[in-house]
């Protein structure tokens, strides 16, 4: 059997920029980022169940500059993954497969998730 090393996907440098492929990669990246964010969510729950001191250390991290920046990033990752996930569900139902439709829905996802992020962060921190 031929076992020579074949090039494996993804061939990120072989293609021109396309909004559809960029958003596809971003969906995976935000999914992985949100998995990391889940660690803070679980730490927060454990903190609340472990008493005021343990909770204060989790809340202290979440309230720090680094923590707030991470929460801002996770907020965008959340709204992006949510909106683009719904876009994926429409594709799964067999709708929106035309190139123009996929491009339009892609920009709609970028727009809606950006505004939702700004609104949520403003409500949270302002």
């Amino acid at each position: 059997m031929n076992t020579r090393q074949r090039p494996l996907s993804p061939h990120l440098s072989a293609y021109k920029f396309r909004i559809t492929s960029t958003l596809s990669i971003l969906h995976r990246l935000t999914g992985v980022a949100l998995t990391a964010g889940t660690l803070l969510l679980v730490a927060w729950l454990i903190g609340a169940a472990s008493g005021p001191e343990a909770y204060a250390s989790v809340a202290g991290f979440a309230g720090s500059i680094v923590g707030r920046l991470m929460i801002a990033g996770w907020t965008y990752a959340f709204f992006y993954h949510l909106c683009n996930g719904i876009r994926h569900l429409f594709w799964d139902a067999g709708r929106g497969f035309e190139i123009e439709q996929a491009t339009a829905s892609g920009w709609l996802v970028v727009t809606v998730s950006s505004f939702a992020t700004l609104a949520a962060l403003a409500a949270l921190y302002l």
Partner: protein
Amino acid sequence: MSLKSPLGKVLGLGSAKDGTEHWWSQRVSAVAMVPLTLWFAFSMLVMPDFGYATVHAWMAAPVNAVLLLLLIGTLLYHSKLGTQVVVEDYVHGFAKVATLILLKFAYAALAVAAVFSILRVSLGAV
């Protein structure tokens, strides 16, 4: 040494019998996460403050505890399905199997820790 070709060895053995289960589970958990994550995001935005007493009282309320349990279970399941695909795409050979097993252990630990924490607070143990 067998003279059978690699193709001949596997022909007729049948599939792994789980077909579209992974794909389908990821979609069903995604649908469930739409209302659950929106509820969680909304709850975070209307939380008066993130002090211990406020968060503890919020977690202890039965409706919140049940929704948190549903959220954390669905979230970790969906995340597990997603990271599994990412690992399968980019990690190969022994490292792939080792990473997948470690991920499984990590998800089990996170799920048990989160569920235990929610129940500990909501059942009034702390």
